[in-house]
Every structure is written in structure tokens, then in C-alpha cells.
């Protein structure tokens, strides 16, 4: 008789390998970030972190304005996350619960815009930014990301399933305006979903590279990703430096992930994937 209640050991072995592969590059980043260049290139490679982390981290802050870059990244990612959470909820609420002429057509347009990647029109986007005098400013990276078609789509589904029409009707009869219904009733009910959407916005904005790379020119406007690229230009001088920068740029997100990663996992499984 087989024991069907046991999970086979191979399952754990395979999952363990997967887990190791998922964290190994990060661990290796940390190892190199804590050792000087000489031991970063020694063979066989060292497996344990060294004690050089603070020294190298200090060098990172000396080579590029890394503290400023961290602050810039926090500002950009927080603004994008907050914008996504509120503006997508507002539009999602309108599409889910309000009746107005053109609603279905407009929603179809929102869905259609999801398929076109923004990357292919970076040239006119740059021209617009220079017309607005926004080149080399943080709003050039913040404003275009404040609201997304996908976020609206997702919030609409949530609001449609959470708020029933009777509740809407009762509130209207009581004389509440649409704004009051949104702000006092709908938004508090979908706050968890809006939070997850904001998290995805935060992570995406934090890790974004191409657009900030094009539009942010001076070192004190860099986000951390662009600062890493600047460190890598010194790669021949010190590999540990680039790795330290990479580690420092990833650390805030890792901390965030440990705190709220469970909700990101749930968000993806609930369909909060980005199109």
C-alpha cells in the first residue's frame, strides 16, 4: 500500500533547488559587496561574506551621490505608487459603478491601450519632455506613471465585486454625492486592493531603467538604478563597488518584500499581473 498522504521528497528537493537559484545571485552580490576586488576575483571563489561592507558602501556614497539617488528613488516610487492606488481606484470606481454616456467605449479604449508598449515611442516622449522643460526633472519620471490602464482594469473588477448596487442606491437616496460615495464608502472597502496596486507601482517605478536613463541627466537627479550604471562605468577599477551599489539599491526593496511580500504574492495570484 502506498502512502498517498506524503509529499514526495523529490518535491522538496526540486523546490529547494529553485529557492536556492532564486536567492543565489543576491547572496553572491552580497559576498562580492563585502570583499575587496582582489578576493572578488580569486579562484576558487570565496563563499562567505567578508567584513568590507561598510568600507565599500562608504566608497559608493563617495563615488556617486548615492544618498541623493536613494531619496530620488523613494520620491519617485512613492509618488507613482500613491498615484496608481488612488487615481486607478477613482477611474475604476467610475467604470464599475457610475452610469454615463460613452462608458463602455471609453473602457474599451482603456483596455486597448494596454497592448502598446511605451518603449517604442520614447523619441516623441523625449521631445514632449523637452517642450515642457521637464528633461532632467523627477516629474518627467513620475507623471507618466501616475495612472495605468492595467490598474484601472484591475480596480474596476474589485470595486464591481465588492460594492453592490443596493449600497450605492441607498447612499444616493441619503443624498450622498458620487465623490462622498467614493471616498467614504468605496475606497475604504477596496483599500487592500489599492494597496497592492500601489506596491506594484512602487516596485516597478523603483526598478525602472530605460526612461530615467534617457531623461535624467545630472548625477543629483539620478535614481538608484542610474547611479548603479554610473558605478559600473568604473567597473575595471573596482567590481566590488558596482556590486555594493547594486546591493544597496536592492536592499530597500528586499526589506519591503520581507514586510509585505506575502501580499505581492497574493496580488499576482489574484490577477494583479501587469499586462
Amino acid at each position, binding site marked *: 500500500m502506498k502512502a498517498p498522504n506524503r509529499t514526495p521528497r523529490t518535491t522538496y528537493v526540486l523546490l529547494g533547488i529553485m529557492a536556492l537559484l532564486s536567492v543565489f545571485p543576491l547572496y553572491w552580490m552580497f559576498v562580492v559587496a563585502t570583499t575587496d576586488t582582489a578576493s572578488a576575483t580569486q579562484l576558487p571563489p570565496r563563499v562567505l561574506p567578508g567584513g568590507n561592507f561598510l568600507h565599500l558602501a562608504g566608497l559608493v556614497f563617495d563615488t556617486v551621490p548615492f544618498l541623493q539617488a536613494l531619496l530620488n528613488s523613494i520620491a519617485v516610487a512613492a509618488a507613482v505608487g500613491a498615484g496608481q492606488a488612488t487615481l486607478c481606484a477613482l477611474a475604476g470606481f*467610475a467604470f464599475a459603478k457610475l452610469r454615463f454616456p460613452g462608458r463602455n467605449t471609453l473602457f474599451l479604449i482603456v483596455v486597448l491601450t494596454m497592448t502598446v508598449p511605451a518603449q*517604442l515611442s520614447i523619441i516623441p516622449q523625449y521631445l514632449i519632455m523637452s517642450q515642457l522643460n521637464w528633461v532632467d526633472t523627477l516629474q518627467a519620471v513620475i507623471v507618466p506613471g501616475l495612472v495605468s490602464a492595467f490598474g484601472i482594469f484591475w480596480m474596476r473588477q474589485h470595486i464591481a465585486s465588492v460594492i453592490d448596487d443596493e449600497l450605492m442606491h441607498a447612499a444616493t437616496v441619503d443624498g450622498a454625492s458620487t465623490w462622498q460615495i467614493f471616498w467614504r464608502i468605496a475606497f475604504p472597502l477596496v483599500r487592500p486592493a489599492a494597496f497592492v496596486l500601489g506596491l506594484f507601482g512602487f516596485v516597478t517605478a523603483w526598478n525602472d531603467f530605460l526612461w530615467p536613463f534617457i531623461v535624467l541627466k545630472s548625477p543629483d537627479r539620478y535614481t538608484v538604478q542610474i547611479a548603479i550604471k554610473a558605478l559600473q562605468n568604473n567597473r575595471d577599477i573596482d567590481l566590488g563597488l558596482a556590486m555594493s551599489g547594486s546591493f544597496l539599491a536592492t536592499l530597500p526593496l528586499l526589506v519591503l518584500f520581507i514586510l509585505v511580500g506575502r501580499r505581492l504574492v497574493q496580488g499576482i495570484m489574484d490577477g494583479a499581473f501587469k499586462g
Partner: protein
Amino acid sequence: MTALTLTLNPVTPPGATGRQTANRRILQSMRERLAPYAYIAPFFLLFAVFGLFPLLFTFYVALFDWDPIGEHRYVGLQNFRVLMDDPRFWGAMRNTFSIWVLSTVPQLLVALGIAHLLNNVRLRAATFFRMVVLVPYVTSVAATTIVFAQLFDRDYGLLNWFLELLGFQHIEFTASVWGSHLMIAAMVAWRWTGYNTLLYLASLQAVPRELYEAASVDGANGWQQFRRISIPALRPIIVFTVVTSTIGGLQIFTEALLANPSGGLSCGAARQCQTLTLFLYEQAFGRFHFGYGAAVGVALFVIVVIVSTINYLLATRIRWERP
């Protein structure tokens, strides 16, 4: 005029005339009627300025010899004629396609397998495994690329050290076509495998447990259950992930730029790993040929339209096939 000014005041003074109240109601109802448009306005405004207009304007710029600080000379379809004969463009197309295949196929297969393993009600530490596979997703592409470039390094890379232990020659990954493609594909696959795993897992969890139990009572082994129950249930999400990874594959830029830092904007002297988006960037922001870069953008748009159409056809077929 006076009445209008009064109605703008939110507090109507006591003893207001009937006409004022009526005006206030009209204004109120107008405000209510316009509210939905105001709520969706931010998206449409931002999309018009930073999405739709740039897209259309790309087609316009592509018709010019456009120097960002000099003059704009209308050249008709010249940019497209040159592009169609440009070996750099076709090379970038080949690289993009090759990296896409090399990253997508193993990535989705592994994701399928891991999702199947995770879809086990008796699995211990399930939350841990789900979280740990998502770690690469929150790691930035720039940081990932720098680590992988070190791991794949010719002289001191961990991978080459390992190959040497096994008795092989060192491989200079960045120098060759296949080597550089494999390296970039590994970065892309590392980043997205866990993410796709969770998407598949979500779909698998929607399959009724009884189906598996019934199959196992009928003597179907794990592989047969995977093949006959899991895969058909996953088909729509598989199509979705293939499309997403295709659109994502067309946008690969950071990996190609940072993986081979000595290679510059062409990702090596032979352009061995220059992707389409990197080629666009090189033309527009490295050489200031905005018109020619825009023509590359138009080519990318055409590819996206083709991919989306294929996706639409596949998706509708799947819907028809469903009972």
C-alpha cells in the same frame, strides 16, 4: 449672474428664494453628471500626452531626417528604405528573437513544473516557497545584470570556474553570439520564472481537487494527471504569458546595455547582442538620428500589432474550444 455667484457658495443662506434653490439643484446635478468624466480624466489626459500622441508622432518623426538640435528635413519613406536594407536592424531583430526564444521556452517550462509542485495541498512551507520564487522579480534589472555579468565573466566568473573544474575550456560569453544570448536569456528567465509560476499556480488552484482524486483512483500517475488535467486548464494563461513575454522580449534593453559594459551601445563590436530597443536607443540618443530611430519604433509597433493579432486569434479559438 448674481444668482450664479450665490449658488457657488456651498452654504445657501436661510430664506433663499425658490429660484436660487432650483439653480443650485441644476448645478449640483450637472456636477454629478460630469463627475464620472472627471474621475477618468487623469488617465485619458496622461495617455493622450504621454501615450497616444508620442505613438502617432513616432510615425511623423520617422518621415524626417531629424536632428534634435539641428534641422528637420522631410525625406518621405527614405528612413524605412534604409532600414529594410540595414544589416544592423536585421541583426538586432535576430538577436531579439533569439534571446526571446532562449529565455521564454525554458522559463515557461520550469514555471509549469514548479507550479505543479507547489499546487500540493499537503506541501509544508508553501508560503515560503511562493515568496522565495518571487525574490528575483523585486530585484532590479540593473542589479541583476551586474551580478550575472560577473557570474559569466571570462576570467573570474563562477560559471567558468565551474566549467574548468569539469575539465572544459573557459567560455568568453560576451564575445560570441550564442554566449551573449544565453547570458542575457538567463537573466530574463531568472527574473520572470517565479512570477509566471505564481500565475500558473493561481490557474491550477482553480481546478477542482476532485478531478485529480478521481484520476488518481482511476490509476493515472502524476505525469498523466499533469498532462491531461493541468495543461488543458492552464491553456489560456499559457497563451497570456507567451504574449506578455513576447512584448517584454521586444523591450529588452537594460540587460543588453549593462551585460557587456565594454561593448557600448552596440553590445559588442560585432553587435552580437544588440536588441531592437537598444538599436533604437543607439540611433536616437547615441547618434541623434531621431528620424531613423523613430523608424525603428514604427517597426517595433508593426511587430507588436502582429503579435497581438495572433494572440487575439489564439484566445478566441480557445474560447470556442471550451464547452
